[in-house]
């Protein structure tokens, strides 16, 4: 049993935010950097702590570490309720780890206006920890938005090509998604007649008194498309590659790695158990959109990319398709697969973004046509990149495999045809993944690259890059080899979440 004298969840949220505030109020740069190590380490340590003690701390309603804090909005049923269930736990840990990696990378990145950079990243980190620690639906949304704001500014200031347009497009899209889902959440709250935004009581209320089917359909549509935009559901995804292409690496790591999972998490944790009728009504369209749009069309589009970061961005969109498919399957297995995939994809895509930036620092370009043969100069970087690529295309031994496998298995029950199409996507991802690795690292360098490397001889991966990369890779392998580290807690919680759907479907 956890025996910390404080609430680990609250601390992991507050620590980064507090440092961000301190930096905003004028903390000197040296201290900012030093304390940033601490502030990024705390959430990661807390995350590992709660992961370790989760089983012992589990209490009623399937939540552990449940605590309430009043913020004066009881009249609206809003209360800062922190806690973790089996679904939130892995994502909480994910947020901690990716945050640590991104933080370490950012601190060492030597970015211009480093203090502002760190401050924004810390805000993001605090928000991310909050998203998955919140039991209260309102705060769940709230923390997401909190983590979202820095993205805009970071893309705008430190972004790459097209940063201004990208920042604006990203922001508008994400705001649209957020607003739609907010409307959905409000609708859910109001129509449920619950007196609290608290997920536990919402669930109790709705189990006793479900919302009418047509209303459920409408609310689910709001949530599906709202969250869908946030998770880049085709065809509402075009912000993602553009934004990730432009975003600075630490930001892209946190956004694509963790923040994006908000939408899926919301669907699993909120929409699905509370709106079973709506889910069953929409699962078909969702699955088809995901498989044709995200997996196949975006898969093919990914093949056509020649810009490394765009490619990673598109591949991330594609993999979100699998996650949607898992949700559409609606069973414990499918949802479990989604959570596994979320965690795995979060780690792997963060790793890929980190490494693409590292590649950029050595080649001064993201264009894969102008690369090649880099592995001769930077074997370790190549090894990491290949590992990350293979992880993301679902090689066993990495966490992603479990996610994809379980989703496929679950999907078969939903529709064998869709399963076949989805599995075909695995081939597509192998094509672009390996092609990318090959054109960056293998063969002979292009003349352009040779010119660049002659001027700036590329060093292999430095420790400042290696350590964050190792954190991510180790986590990927750890889960890959021991999936039960996640699935045990998931199993019980998901059975709870999937039950309303199964009961409704059975009717």
């Amino acid at each position, binding site marked *: 049993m956890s025996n910390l004298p404080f609430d680990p969840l609250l601390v992991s949220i507050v620590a980064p935010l507090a440092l961000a505030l301190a930096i905003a109020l004028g903390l000197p740069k040296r201290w900012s950097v030093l304390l940033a190590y601490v502030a990024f380490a705390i959430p990661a340590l807390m995350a590992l702590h709660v992961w370790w003690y989760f089983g012992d701390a589990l209490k009623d309603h399937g939540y552990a570490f449940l605590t309430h804090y009043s913020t004066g909005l009881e009249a609206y049923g809003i209360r800062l309720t922190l806690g973790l269930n089996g679904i939130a736990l892995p994502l909480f840990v994910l947020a901690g780890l990716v945050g640590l990696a991104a933080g370490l990378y950012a601190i060492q990145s030597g970015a211009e206006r480093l203090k502002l950079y760190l401050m924004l990243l810390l805000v993001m980190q605090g928000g991310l920890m909050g998203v998955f620690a919140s039991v209260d639906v309102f705060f769940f949304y709230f923390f997401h938005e909190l983590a979202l704001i820095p993205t805009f500014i970071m893309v705008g200031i430190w972004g790459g090509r097209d940063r201004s347009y990208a920042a604006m497009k990203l922001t508008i899209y994400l705001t649209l998604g957020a607003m739609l889902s907010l409307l959905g959440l409000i609708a859910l709250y109001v129509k449920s007649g619950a007196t609290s935004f608290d997920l536990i009581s919402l669930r109790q209320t709705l189990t006793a008194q479900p919302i009418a089917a047509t209303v459920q359909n409408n609310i689910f549509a709001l949530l599906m498309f709202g969250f869908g935009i946030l998770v880049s559901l085709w065809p509402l995804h075009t912000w993602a590659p553009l934004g990730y292409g432009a975003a600075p690496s630490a930001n892209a790591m946190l956004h694509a790695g963790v923040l994006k999972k908000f939408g899926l998490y919301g669907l699993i944790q909120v929409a699905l158990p509370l709106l079973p009728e709506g889910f069953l009504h929409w699962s078909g369209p969702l699955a088809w959109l995901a498989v044709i749009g995200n997996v196949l069309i975006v898969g093919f*589009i990914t093949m056509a990319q020649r810009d490394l970061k765009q490619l990673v961005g598109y591949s991330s969109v594609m993999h979100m398709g699998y996650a949607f498919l898992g949700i559409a399957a609606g069973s414990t297995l499918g949802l479990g697969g989604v959570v596994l995939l979320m965690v795995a994809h979060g780690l792997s895509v963060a790793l890929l973004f980190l490494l693409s930036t590292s590649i950029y620092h050595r080649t001064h370009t993201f264009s894969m046509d102008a690369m090649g043969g880099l592995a001769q100069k930077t074997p370790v970087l190549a090894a990491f990149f290949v590992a990350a690529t293979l992880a993301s295309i679902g090689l066993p031994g990495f966490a992603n495999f479990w996610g994809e496998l379980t989703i496929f298995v679950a999907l078969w029950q939903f529709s064998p045809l869709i399963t076949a199409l989805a599995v075909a996507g695995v081939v597509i991802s192998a094509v672009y993944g*390996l092609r990318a690795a090959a054109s960056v690292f293998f063969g*002979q360098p292009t003349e352009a690259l040779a010119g660049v490397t002659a001027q700036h001889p590329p060093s292999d991966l430095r420790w400042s890059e290696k350590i964050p990369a190792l954190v991510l890779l180790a986590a990927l392998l750890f889960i890959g080899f021991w999936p039960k580290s996640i*699935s045990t807690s998931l*199993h019980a919680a998901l059975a709870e979440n999937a039950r309303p759907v199964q009961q409704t479907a059975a009717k």
Partner: protein
Amino acid sequence: MWRRSSFPPMTMLQHAILALILPLASATIIALFLRRAGGIAAAVSVLAATALAVIAVILALHDDRFEASFEWLRLGDFSLSLGIKFDDLAALMLVIVGVVGLCVHVFSLGYMHDDAAKARFFGGLSIFMFSMLGIVFADNLFMMFIFWELVGFSSYVLINHWHERQSAADASKKAFIVNRVGDFGFLLGIIACYYAFGTVNLTELAAKVDGGAVVAASIPLLLFCGAVGKSAQLPLQVWLPDAMEGPTPVSALIHAATMVAAGIYMLCRINVLMVPEALTVIMWVGTATALYAALCAIVQSDIKKVLAYSTLSQLGYMVAAFGLGALATHHDHGGTTHEMLMAAGVGAAMFHLTTHAFFKALMFLGSGSVIHGCHHEQDIFKMGGLRRKMPLTFWTFTIGVAAIIGIPGLAGFFSKDAILYLAMTKSTPVFAVLAFTAVLTAFYMVRLWKITFFGTPRSDSAGHAHEGGLTLTLPLVVLAVLALVGGYTAFYPQVFTGVFELIPEAHESAHTIILITSLAVTAIGAFSAWMLYQPTSTDTLAQKSPNLFNGLVALRNSFDAAYDYYVAKIQQRFAILLNFLEQIFLAGLIIRGFSGVVGLFGMGARALHVGRLNVYLYWFFGGVVVLWLFAAGVIHP
């Protein structure tokens, strides 16, 4: 028959687990600590391989056959286990992998001695051993799939060993992707199987099928897709010749002896699921592959490519053998004659797999020795006269050739006979094709043998060829011995009876027919090749019959051409088209257009502020009018 034990003695299980973990540990240690210490890495890897071989033999010789598993993942009703099913089949495969693996490891010590990335190479070998053992041990299809993918990964890493060569990079990519295509079906098959039977555990599956569960033909066929990819059957055979870009020991171990045979092993594992329709398909795919690859092999000039196509052809043999299926046999038991079905396909396929592993690994290592001796020259027309320069290599290679073309008494002779007998019994057309393939096999093998080893050296590198050190020659000798004796089932300890008793044996008249056929095809093929080819620097067939030669070349290239056409002209263009549509249509026209329209409205709204007071006053007036109409009830909201 193996004995099923629910409480296996822990020691044997521990041995098995140890066997699985050893190479993994070796790979991990190399990856983490020995990246720059190639020598130590090699030593660690070889030690692991040695230990593994020893354990393999101990496990096989020990009479214990057991099953054990533990749950790896559970979500909802779905549970995935990591388990070991150690029966005779697994034991046989384990020993093959262990012994050939050890030979190749030792060979690599010499072959890769000066390589800059020795650590990566040996790390890759260790990973491969780990993955391959996983397949061998797997007690369920999901686990098999996992290791299936992992052998693909290690194959990718090892083919890509010399990654600065564009061709190696391409070949590794191709191998992985083509395998993925096969795995696409394999995975679907596993999932379908899971839902059809509620389990993918091999033993439980067997129990269910024996209990009368109906098997849809789609399931075995989907599962067969995996074998098509991994064992390089038509139409996914294209990756294997290209995979020769990897170091030769890799070709010997992975792309000849073990990994590519995993497809056959897998088929044998799921033999219970095979329904006649599926078997027919499998049989014809195997037969076609055997013939096609043999035809292609004739026009190769790269020593390894010849061997690669030969491997393809032999794999086709095995698949065809498996596809031929069961054989009705008569047993005398206590005076009464029982007719029972014997899984002869499994026996024949596995038997040929075993012998093939020995002689093909032998030949590959031989070719490696040749290549090493000739300073990495691989074109047989630039060799010649190596008989004298590298006598040991020559003699061992000769044993390999003899074994594969089916000289009586050598390993290949027995296994090929078993297959031909089975084919004759079950399907005449297949028998005809396989027999013709055997002619071709003898033909191209003798061609290779003659051009490489006879005549005079046709290049400087061949002129300065020399025999390698002990690490290079010792494995050749060991494998040569195995190729000599591997065909005698009596040579094997009694522990593999579970497999060997399934080997079909011709009796009486059939025996004679097969013997004659076998000898005839070998003789025809070998003789015509010996007569046709001269050890010169050009291909005699190309000179004498250019049409035939070019036709065969075109046949060989047809698949690659088709795939290249698909990839470059269809797939890539489709991708670019979709990308274009997305950029221009979705992100451009629709989204930018929409925002543009909103912006225009914005400009319009802004332009309404004309700055003139009396215009603004009209706004007020309009507002009042509308509100007035509301009040008067003229406008009903």
